[in-house]
């Protein structure tokens, strides 16, 4: 077999170009198919990753620690007694750097003219910088300066809805653990902008200790948000946290905190595979067709080669190799084409004409395609492996010819 490799290669390569029109059409088809596989995947990946990134930033954190009852009843009655110094010691001990203890309660914000339901966050500005986007998204005014800051930072859209402005006063109302109204006046010191309107409308930020005093909860918090090295792989982080923290807290990764996004990430991989296979199947008919015709019109030569003593397995190898060469050229062209079309788009594609629709999906209106090596490899592997399977039948048929019948066939 190996000693026949050279002749098999020569025959496969020259036969490929014998009917160059047919070969070129098929290469074009494979190229378009491969391009579509990779291009579409990169767009979808970009969109989903963007959704997940901003989703994780808004949560925030890759893993959150709560009181076990908090998810069902997100109120000041379900607090965890994590004092910063104690927790900090334990987290820092383990090498976690990006983490923040926060307060997250429903509240009503009232301006002179309007009221809105919002989610109030009491944060430690020094720590929160590492886990969330707000500090870097201030469009006017300033971000919170300390946990004792008595100012409030809210979204541009909420500011408009409340008919108020930077520097004006608003009143926040929520409840304390005894279900008495907890309210306090605040001055708006900063305005942030976010990709999603919904974030701008519903999230407001205050100094952690100021909020703790308003809610009369001492130094307790509702959650600890921790950021790990990679949002795709949060399980080790969750396990580690669950191990070092007390048993009476719930440690959840973002995939469970936001099941929509978690599912999206899981379904995405499935989608990529299905899409790649569907495209391949559409291609496979043409591929098999081309090979069947190529074998059919070469029956006599195949017979001749067999008559001269070439082994059937070499005939099989020859047809398979011809098919592989065709696929490889198509893959190379398609992959380069995908690369060439995606790279210029990596700066972002503006799709704001359907922006509000994308917001329903949780995606922003600028799409950043993401070319993953793994997706390119998947597309190439699917095409090669399934291509080999599809070529087996015509190649096998060719190798089974009886030399006499093949030669005498007119």
């Amino acid at each position, binding site marked *: 077999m190996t000693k026949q490799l050279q002749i098999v290669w020569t025959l496969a390569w020259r036969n490929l170009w014998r009917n160059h029109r047919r070969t070129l059409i098929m290469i074009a088809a494979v190229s378009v198919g491969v391009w579509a596989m990779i291009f579409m995947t990169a767009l979808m990946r970009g969109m989903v990753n963007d959704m997940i990134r901003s989703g994780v930033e808004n949560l925030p954190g890759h893993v959150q620690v709560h009181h076990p009852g908090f998810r069902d009843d997100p109120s000041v009655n379900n607090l965890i007694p994590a004092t910063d110094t104690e927790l900090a010691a334990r987290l820092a001990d383990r090498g976690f750097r990006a983490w923040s203890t926060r307060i997250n309660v*429903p509240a009503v914000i009232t301006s002179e003219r309007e009221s809105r339901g*919002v989610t109030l966050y009491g944060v430690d500005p020094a720590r929160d910088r590492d886990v969330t986007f707000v500090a870097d998204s201030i469009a006017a005014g300033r971000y919170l300066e300390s946990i004792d800051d008595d100012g409030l930072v809210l979204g541009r859209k909420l500011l408009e809805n409340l008919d108020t402005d930077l520097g004006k006063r608003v009143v926040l109302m929520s409840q304390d653990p005894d279900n008495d109204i907890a309210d306090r006046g605040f001055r708006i010191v900063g305005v942030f902008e976010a990709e999603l309107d919904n974030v701008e409308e519903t999230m407001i930020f205050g100094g952690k200790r100021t909020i703790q005093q308003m809610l009369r909860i001492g130094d307790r918090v509702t959650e600890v948000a921790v950021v790990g090295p990679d949002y795709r792989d949060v399980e080790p982080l969750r396990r580690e946290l669950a191990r070092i923290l007390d048993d009476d807290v719930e440690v959840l990764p973002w995939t469970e905190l936001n099941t929509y996004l978690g599912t999206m990430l899981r379904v995405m991989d499935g989608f990529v595979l299905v899409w790649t296979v569907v495209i391949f199947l559409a291609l496979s008919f043409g591929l098999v067709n081309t090979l069947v015709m190529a074998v059919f019109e070469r029956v006599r030569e195949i017979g001749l080669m067999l008559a001269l003593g070439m082994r059937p397995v070499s005939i099989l190898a020859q047809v398979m190799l011809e098919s592989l060469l065709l696929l490889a050229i198509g893959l190379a062209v398609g992959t380069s084409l995908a690369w060439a079309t995606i790279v210029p788009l990596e700066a972002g594609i503006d799709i704001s004409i359907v922006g509000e629709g994308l917001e329903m999906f949780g995606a922003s209106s600028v799409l950043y395609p993401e070319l993953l090596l793994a997706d390119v490899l998947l597309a190439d592997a699917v095409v090669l492996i399934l291509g080999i399977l599809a070529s087996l039948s015509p190649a096998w048929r060719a190798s089974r010819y009886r030399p006499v019948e093949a030669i005498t066939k007119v």
Partner: protein
Amino acid sequence: MNITLRLAWRNLWRHSRRTWLTLGAMAFSNILLVFMISLQFGMYGMMIDNTLRVMTGHLQVQAEGYKDEHKMRQTVPDIAELAASLRRDLELERVAPRALAFALASSSDRTYGLQIAGVDPARESLVSSIPGLVRTGNYLAAGDAAEIVIGSVLARNLRVGTGDEVTLLGSGLDGSFAAAVVTVSGIFETGVVELDRGLAEVPLGFFQDVFFMEGAGHQVVIAARDLDEAALLTERTRELVADNPGLVVHDWDALQPGLRQAIKADMSSAFFMYGILVILVAFSVLNTQLMSVLERTREFGIVMALGISPGRLGRLVLLETALMGFMGFVGGAVLGALVTGWFAANGFSYPGMDELTANFNLPSRVYPPVAFLPTVIGPLVVYFFSMVSALYPALRLNWLQPVEAMRAA
């Protein structure tokens, strides 16, 4: 059957395997297209319907600016009267007034912020699905009693049941402090967490008293039977409120701009995929027909020498493609409809679909309807591009020289 047709048919089956493979490519794509398009159209319909039916309706009359700013003072004055007159002029029962405000709701244990809607208890069920989704207790009784229906998550969070009292705190139209004690008459469950957690309904008259509305409200909601009727009603309502300065009519597209755009965004990615499938089929057909023409060069040379024009041979090649395309069309459409029909009966779902579709007010199992247009549109496009791709092989015949052609192997 005339002679050309018979010839075309027989030529098609000279290489039956090749024809079958090309038909296979057509059928594969057609089945996929029929199913995907049916599923898509079915889902869009459900998305629009389910989203609008919850509360939005197909059109609303509002004060100018309210849609974007949702400010308490952007009111529709004398809203009950306006609703009644619209009901009369449109000869339509499905017209209901509403007023909206944010407030804090407190039970003995808990306090939460939420949106309060003042509704006409007798009419609300005609424009919204929420009255029908009351799982515990009853929807609001007619009249202006101090009653409230709340979502299931809110009820759980407030730790209240039917018959319990809830205190509402907010600010009225004039900015003054507004407060009231209401009795929970029912608890609804829509499955949409935001609504189940953040919405409550009280009778409109009661709402107007508590929030000092002086007869005003924020929306007159009108529901149509379908989107066509919605367009018609929008036109007529616009005429009817034209002489009320400060009032505007918004159709569902304006009220839920995300909906149509979500559909558009989804459609554009779907059409990209469909386009690729169609192109791949076209390549398949081009390959097959080009091969079939090239291998018959000698034969074509002979017939041309006998006096048959290249144009006629070209038409023969196109006729062969048309026959093949027709079989692919019929086979693909029928099989596609069968596949869709199977899913229409058994439902279509994939792992994780419930989490994803809930965002779009869709159930976790979709039953795609079998309809004529979604069934033929994909196969028709495939047919069209098959014919286009056969043009090159057919036109090539014009360059054929009989003598050279006959010498070809």
